[in-house]
């Protein structure tokens, strides 16, 4: 919302400065976004008088002038034809910045004659395009500030423009008068009375109006208008044009400018039809659907059924409360005009405006709510202004419906202010504030004014009083602690796990990413997503159309971008939500890590090698351990399609899958534009079970004094036998005696097959025996070894390697 200071002063009797006004506006909740003060760039210039002018000794077109200024007599060389003795001029001194020529003046020497400044033309001061000579003022004293002279004589040229941000609850501040009312309530001046008029109609309006019964209850409760015939629709007066231009509107013609002037001045949008182009009466009705309508913005819209329209016998002439029609619009040739002032339902206007994507000043106001009680008064005031500016004769008012009854009242509890806000304001002040804002007080009941649709309860009364009093004055009061003493833990188990996953991954060397929750359809499809339920109806780009089913697509895209920047080795992770469906709650917290390229940079020690599945597995296991997963887990090969089928696995507990790890499927890598090798893991954080009993106490530590014995075994097995089968078999050989079984070597490939036969490999296990009550004898060790060999051979179908 833009307005100018002089416009404000039409409604507010104030001596406050622009700074005081803008500060108060922001504090009142009408946040000032911009102030354009044309006086600022003219501030240095003062008035002066030419005492004497004579021809320059060396130039025919230049004059050397003696000029009386506030600093005494100065010599100035001037090229203007009108530079002559006795005229009052605008002086720019050395050191001043002259905006129209973008120059900061110095003391010059022009063809050998010193010049101490210049006398300006209108163009040089950006007042107009006039440059035929220097400014000659009809009045003014030497030394007077030029801006002061302008403020008195040409106020429009130095009228500061103020732009404020309007929150949706304050339609009243979409009119200059509403802004003035707030400032007056704050004490920055007095709201000037606005005398209403009633223009006597001289004839019956040839255009009648009728509201369709279907709309009377809600869409258009009240419509008023009248014809004014014999008008001359020329340009509007300068003062009006200046104000409209200052707020960024283009003056069009007097009739149109009046409607804009009322829109911004009084939040009373109006419409003018060229009465000669209207055939028959105007009918306000819901559109049947399919009607074509050429609007004033030059575009043709197709109405949907139920949209509110104003039609005559020809067809739709206006989109109610949003935009008028081109065909019945006023032009300079218009002589008879039909002036409309109506109340349109905010919701109906909003939904039509949104559906047709039309933004107009009228829509903006009607959907926030204009004053329903001002429909007729606004019509009368505008009629008077049109008669004043354009002449003509007004008809009687035609009207259908009646002003919407918005009367209501809420109890004013003066104690509520200190209870809710913590500010102590006497009851009399509270009542005075509300009255200044237009509330009617009756005992302890406060009735909001008709222009404040936002006031809908007792809390609103508190807000109004606090707002006008200024929240800046509010002093903080300590919030009492809920519990005395040391604060209690506040995080849930899942929140603690989320942190643990994140910190563990960073400790393992991964860089945390935060990638978008929405991804492109192709990537979503590759990771089992992309269903209709997770599609975004109005995506901002084709890269962000579906909620992500997994974190890996985002990490892979990030990896591709980094590879393109020349970073080949990457360790990226993300902890965040993935979405299984489009219903609230169909999301799951995942932690994913992605390793691309080599395990380490090149170095003199040969640390570098391509990342592989076992890097990913080790990191997944480290995170699982940090999350409190038990040590004994199952590893299966049941993984999703985006993993390499032979080089991936799932870590689970019974039916619960806690994590997947492996090489990313080569096709997926290619589709995502990542150059391999790439391995990854994904952990379902909430799938990791929490300990059943939560206690800080650790189980007792049992240590044996008896020395442990390590024995190594190598087995020849089929190449596809899994090591874990052998480990579990060995562990089962003697649960009391065997402390641990570790795979410490494997021998595979061509050389292995050459030694052990086609399709064979060897697995080497190290078994640690921990005696509990007596030292092991050779016989004991032999016995358990034999059992291990037997169990492993049976489970794997292999044999001890000789």
């Amino acid at each position: 919302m833009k307005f100018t200071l002089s416009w404000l002063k039409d409604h507010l009797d104030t001596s406050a400065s622009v700074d005081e006004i803008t500060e108060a506006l922001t504090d009142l909740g009408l946040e000032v976004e911009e102030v354009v003060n044309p006086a600022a760039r003219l501030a240095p210039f003062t008035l002066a008088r030419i005492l004497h002018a004579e021809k320059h000794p060396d130039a025919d077109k230049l004059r050397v002038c003696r000029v009386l200024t506030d600093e005494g007599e100065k010599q100035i060389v001037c090229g203007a034809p009108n530079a002559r003795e006795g005229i009052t001029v605008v002086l720019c001194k050395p050191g001043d910045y002259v905006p129209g020529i973008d120059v900061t003046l110095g003391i010059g020497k022009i063809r050998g004659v010193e010049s101490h400044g210049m006398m300006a033309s209108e163009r040089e001061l950006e007042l107009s395009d006039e440059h035929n000579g220097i400014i000659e003022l009809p009045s003014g004293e030497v030394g007077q500030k030029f801006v002061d002279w302008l403020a008195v004589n040409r106020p429009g040229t130095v009228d500061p423009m103020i732009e404020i941000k309007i929150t949706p609850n304050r339609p009243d501040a979409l009119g200059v008068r509403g802004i003035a009312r707030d400032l007056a309530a704050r004490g920055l001046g007095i709201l000037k009375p606005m005398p209403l008029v009633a223009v006597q109609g001289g004839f019956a309006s040839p255009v009648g109006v009728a509201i369709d019964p279907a709309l009377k209850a809600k869409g258009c409760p009240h419509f008023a208008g009248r014809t004014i015939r014999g008008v001359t629709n020329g340009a509007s007066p300068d003062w009006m044009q200046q104000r409209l231009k200052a707020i960024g509107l283009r003056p069009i013609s007097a009739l149109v400018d009046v409607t804009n002037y009322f829109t911004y001045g009084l939040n009373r949008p109006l419409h003018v039809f060229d009465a000669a182009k209207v055939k028959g009466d105007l009918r306000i009705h819901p559109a049947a659907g399919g009607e074509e309508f050429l609007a004033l913005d030059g575009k043709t819209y197709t109405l949907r059924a139920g949209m509110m329209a104003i039609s005559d016998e020809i067809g739709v002439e206006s989109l109610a409360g949003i935009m008028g029609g081109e065909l019945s619009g006023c032009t300079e040739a218009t002589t008879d005009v039909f002036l409309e002032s109506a109340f349109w339902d905010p919701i109906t206007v909003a939904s039509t405006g949104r559906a047709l994507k039309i933004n107009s000043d009228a829509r903006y106001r009607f959907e926030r709510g204009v004053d329903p009680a001002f429909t007729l008064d606004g019509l009368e005031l505008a009629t008077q202004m049109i008669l004043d500016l354009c002449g003509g004769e007004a008809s009687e008012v035609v009207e259908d419906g009646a002003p919407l009854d918005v009367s209501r009242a809420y109890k004013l509890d003066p104690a509520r202010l200190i209870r809710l806000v913590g500010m102590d304001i006497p009851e009399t002040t509270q009542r005075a504030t509300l009255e200044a804002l237009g509330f009617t007080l009756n005992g302890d009941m406060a009735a909001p004014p008709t222009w404040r649709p936002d006031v809908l309860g007792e809390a609103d009364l508190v807000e109004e009083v606090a707002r006008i009093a200024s929240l800046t004055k509010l002093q903080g009061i300590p919030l009492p602690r809920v519990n005395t003493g040391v604060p209690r833990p506040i995080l849930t188990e899942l929140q603690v796990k989320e942190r643990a996953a994140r910190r563990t991954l960073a400790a393992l060397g991964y860089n945390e990413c935060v990638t978008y929750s929405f991804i492109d359809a192709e990537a979503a499809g590759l990771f089992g997503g992309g269903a209709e339920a997770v599609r975004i109806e109005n995506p901002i780009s084709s890269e962000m159309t579906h909620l992500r089913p997994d974190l890996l697509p985002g990490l892979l895209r990030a990896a591709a971008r980094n590879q393109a920047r020349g970073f080949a080795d990457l360790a990226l992770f993300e902890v965040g939500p993935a979405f299984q469906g489009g219903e609230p709650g169909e999301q799951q917290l995942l932690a994913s890590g992605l390793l691309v390229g080599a395990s380490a940079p090149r170095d003199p020690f040969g640390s570098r090698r391509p990342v592989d599945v076992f890097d990913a597995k080790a990191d997944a296991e480290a995170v699982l351990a940090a999350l409190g997963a038990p040590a004994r887990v199952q590893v299966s090969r049941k993984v999703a399609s985006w993993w390499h089928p032979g080089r991936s696995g799932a870590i689970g507990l019974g039916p619960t899958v806690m994590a997947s790890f492996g090489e990313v499927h080569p096709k997926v890598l290619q589709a995502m534009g990542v150059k391999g090798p790439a391995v990854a893991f994904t952990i379902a954080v909430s799938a990791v079970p929490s300990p059943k009993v939560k206690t800080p106490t650790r189980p007792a530590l049992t240590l044996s004094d008896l020395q442990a014995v390590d024995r190594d075994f190598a087995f020849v097995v089929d190449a596809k036998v899994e090591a874990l089968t052998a480990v579990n078999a060995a562990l089962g050989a003697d649960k009391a005696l065997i402390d641990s079984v570790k795979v410490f070597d494997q021998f595979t490939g061509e050389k292995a097959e050459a030694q052990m036969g086609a399709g064979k490999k060897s697995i080497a296990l190290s078994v640690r025996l921990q005696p509990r009550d007596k030292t092991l004898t050779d016989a004991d060790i032999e016995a358990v070894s034999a059992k291990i060999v037997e169990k492993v051979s049976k489970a794997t179908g292999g044999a001890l390697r000789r």
Partner: protein
Amino acid sequence: MDGLDALKAKYLTAVATAADESALEEVRLGALGKKGEISALMATLGKMEPDQRKAFGAMLNVLKDEIDAALRAKKAGLADATLDERLRSEWLDVTLPGRPRPRGTIHPVSQVMEELTAIFGDMGFAVAEGPQVESDWYNFDALNIPPEHPARQEHDTFFMARAEGENRPPHVLRTHTSPVQIRAMAAQGAPIRVIAPGRVYRMDMDQTHAPMFHQVEGLAIDRHISMANLKWTLEEFCRAFFEVPSVELRFRASHFPFTEPSAEVDIRCSWEGGQLKIGQGDSWLEILGSGMVHPKVLSAAGVDPTQWQGFAFGMGIDRIAMLKYGIPDLRAFFESDLRWLRHYGFAALDMPDLPGGLSR
């Protein structure tokens, strides 16, 4: 007796001139070995008279100790020389780099969320969460934003697709963390103190906007919590978060459908030299929106507004992270540029806590 002196001189010389450990061992065997000269003399003691044996024996023992000591000293000397020789050959270029250790980082958004948790946790606020796909009711209606309310348009909402023939309003990607207020109050009732950090979504992308960003919601409901308590809470938070001795906040009247009264909150700052300094200077920086929870919102969440009241606030996590850590561009937060992650990220062990200060 002269014989012993000669013996002494002979062996001490031999020890001194022994070139290596094997030569030294030969000397030892010659003197102190079973068949050595000293040992042989020892063997003669048995045949001597007691007086003579005593005197000669004592002298022999002295001689034996002296030679033994010389042998040991020489042996140590030779070992040192050998080690010195080895060390002289063992030279490495220690300017070579150490073996690479990976260095991971925590994203600033995560770090700041933990900072928020540390501060508000101390003030008794728990951390609440809610779904990011929200129903229209939780995201708008329950927060006193009815359908067609102009405030809805300012939210630039992302809508989820609806199945064919589905009549309910489309679900939305939550446009703010405020729906978590409703969910938390509905689940827990009053009194309640929670913060709710998380992802939010708006259809907006330009120099300073990303279609996804992070907010933290704060909510405190009790019998007597007032807007003055809100101001104090925010002052304490800002002082702790920005790690400055003091801050000054300015409340400006504003409007949010879900609070009444509502205030935008500015913090005093200085931009001198292009560097933001919180807590001093003549500028004001808008950092959050807040207010007293609207009675309709309390009712929507099943909390009786005649019994309970309190405040709510919401602020941008990415934004306060940018302000605190001097990060210039919001969109870079979500681009995962390795250089950015390394530069603005935090070490794994930089866990914010109040006793140690939030940042290192």
